[in-house]
């Protein structure tokens, strides 16, 4: 197991390196033209562009450019030339907001998906299963920007039940923090609950006919124990992979729409605004930031996976 973990972490470092090279190429090499102009943003003058060219080494070979760019990102020297703000400081400021949204939503969607998926599988073909199927499809089909906007309008603006967007740090008021996050959590979770509960339902129905489940029943275990220890445990394995990927993406600022609709001012909203401004330094930094979380969560998932399924440790 220890060797497995070390191997996974080493490969994670390699993947991250590859991603940094790739995103550097996408932003600075592939588009052609002068990378310094793009980096400078819309309202730059020639002197600024010249300074940027020198700073990033855009007049030097590619590996120097790559080295200097990464150095700027990882030492926190990267500046947005449009807003004059330090990019890394901005991201750091946004992280608690994005994390609060991501962690809360990931817990909610996983809990509901397990409960609904299991319930649906137990009632497969019956009325309640069909109702849940329709609800899941509705959840999957609703775009978050639309559903979020509806919630904001009806529950926030019209009914006044919830604050109309915004974020309150947990240190300031834990209740207000929670209160402000209820709608974003719900909006973000709905889609995932739909997808995950459908997948889990299918997995459970496959697993429940497996021979070892019959063995578990023949042993005289209580039905609850059969379901949780034998059926659910095996059905969860594929879900965990998916969850890791989605959770990683949301942690890395992937919930761009949710953050923006509810004005959470997280990493995703920062990316959204930077893209709108054609402000390249933040976009570049957030890409690497997001990639880092996806790769990290993927690694964690692989390790959890091995703990869940002992057969994987061999390969």
């Amino acid at each position, binding site marked *: 197991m220890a060797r497995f973990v070390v191997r996974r972490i080493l490969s994670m470092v390699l993947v991250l390196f590859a991603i940094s090279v790739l995103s550097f190429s996408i932003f600075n090499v592939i588009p052609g033209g002068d990378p310094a102009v793009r980096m400078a943003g819309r309202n730059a003058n020639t002197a600024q562009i010249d300074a940027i060219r020198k700073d990033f080494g855009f007049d030097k070979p590619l590996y120097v450019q790559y080295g200097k760019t990464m150095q700027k990102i990882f030492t926190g020297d990267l500046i947005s030339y449009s807003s004059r703000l330090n990019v890394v400081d901005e991201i750091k400021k946004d992280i608690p907001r994005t994390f609060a949204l991501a962690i809360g939503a990931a817990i909610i969607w996983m809990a509901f998906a397990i409960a609904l998926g299991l319930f649906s599988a137990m009632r497969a073909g019956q009325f309640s299963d069909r109702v849940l199927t329709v609800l899941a499809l509705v959840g999957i089909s609703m775009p978050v920007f639309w559903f979020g906007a509806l919630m904001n309008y009806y529950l926030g603006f019209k009914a006044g039940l919830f604050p109309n967007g915004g974020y309150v740090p947990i240190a300031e008021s834990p209740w207000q923090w929670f209160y402000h996050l209820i709608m974003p959590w719900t909006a973000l979770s709905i889609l995932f609950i739909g997808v995950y509960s459908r997948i889990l339902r299918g997995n459970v129905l496959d697993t429940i006919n*497996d*021979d*070892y489940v*019959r*063995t*578990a*029943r*023949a*042993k*005289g*275990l*209580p*039905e609850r*124990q059969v379901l949780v*220890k*034998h059926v659910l*445990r*095996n059905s969860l*394995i594929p879900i965990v992979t998916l969850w890791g990927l989605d959770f990683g993406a949301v942690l890395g600022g992937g919930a761009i729409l949710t953050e923006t609709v509810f004005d959470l001012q997280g990493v995703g909203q920062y990316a959204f605004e930077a893209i709108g401004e054609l402000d390249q330094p933040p976009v570049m930094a957030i890409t690497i930031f997001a990639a880092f979380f996806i790769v990290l969560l993927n690694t964690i998932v692989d390790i959890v996976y091995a703990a*869940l*399924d*002992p*057969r994987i440790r*061999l390969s």
Partner: protein
Amino acid sequence: MSAERLLEVDGLEVSFQTEEGLVHAVDGVSFDLGPGEILAVVGESGCGKSVTAMTLLGLTRSPNSRFGGTAIYRGTELVGASDDELRKIRGAEIAMIFQDPMTSLNPVHRIGDQIVEQIRAHGPVTEAVAMERAIELLERVGIPRARERIRSYPHEFSGGMRQRVMIAMALSCDPSVLIADEPTTALDVTIQAQILGRIRDLRDETGAAVILVTHDLGVVAEIADRVAVMYAGRIVEHGTLDEIFYDPQHPYTWGLLGSITRVDRPRPTRLPAIGGLPPSLADRPEGCHFRPRCPHAFAKCTETPDLEFRGGKTPDHIDRCWLDPEAKRKLRVVDGQTGLMPPDRATA
């Protein structure tokens, strides 16, 4: 056979509602079982023998299944029992070993835990005590270094070892009845012999009765006391091992015996087999179900024969064939010469 009866099955019926209609998997099966007895239930694939076995533990219950008849285990009726009553009997009083040891153990749990959970489901036992008991059981079924192996996962074991684990698990609560559903089918021949030997030894040590479901007459000859031959959901012949092997009454039994290949006889040019296929259980022929495949069928065979004494040597040797005993004796000889029946068994 008037001794204490552990299990009395009477007129057991199981049918499943499917897209092709109602499938009568088990149709009026009756037998009984005394302590320490080994009853073999034999027949081709799909004749209802596994369904019979699993129904005793309620493992065939589903929204699409219908049941009839009774199965009384020590005063408890199993067919109509509540899920909770059955749960207490499962694994504790009646334990089951399944066909495929490769898939019958949960791949994600250690084998020790899988035995321990069964022990703890049936009594207030601490984890540590149950674990000791599991180690003892594994040693008893012949797993070396059981104390270490208890922490292994099923994929670290071979098929034969896994089947031993299944047996250890089945024995963990000292059941009075052990149902073995094709316990050796998935194993190679040398391991088969070991597993059968273990089952027989354990019967001798614990006095548990065994229901052995199999299609392998070699296995039957090895350990059974009594044999029930099933065809298309019905028992067509029932008698002691010797009666079934040396004085078979039903043409289907002759066919089964005739299809054993033997190393002590000249090699046949074709493997002997019963012609045709078993009927669909959703659409069975009227009367004797074996009629369409039976070379000796006659007019009366369109009526359903009861399972009763018809000409064996003891009144307990019962079958479902309309042929009169004299005709059977003669036809058996003919079948022996045509290869349907081994010649040395053809003389009554």
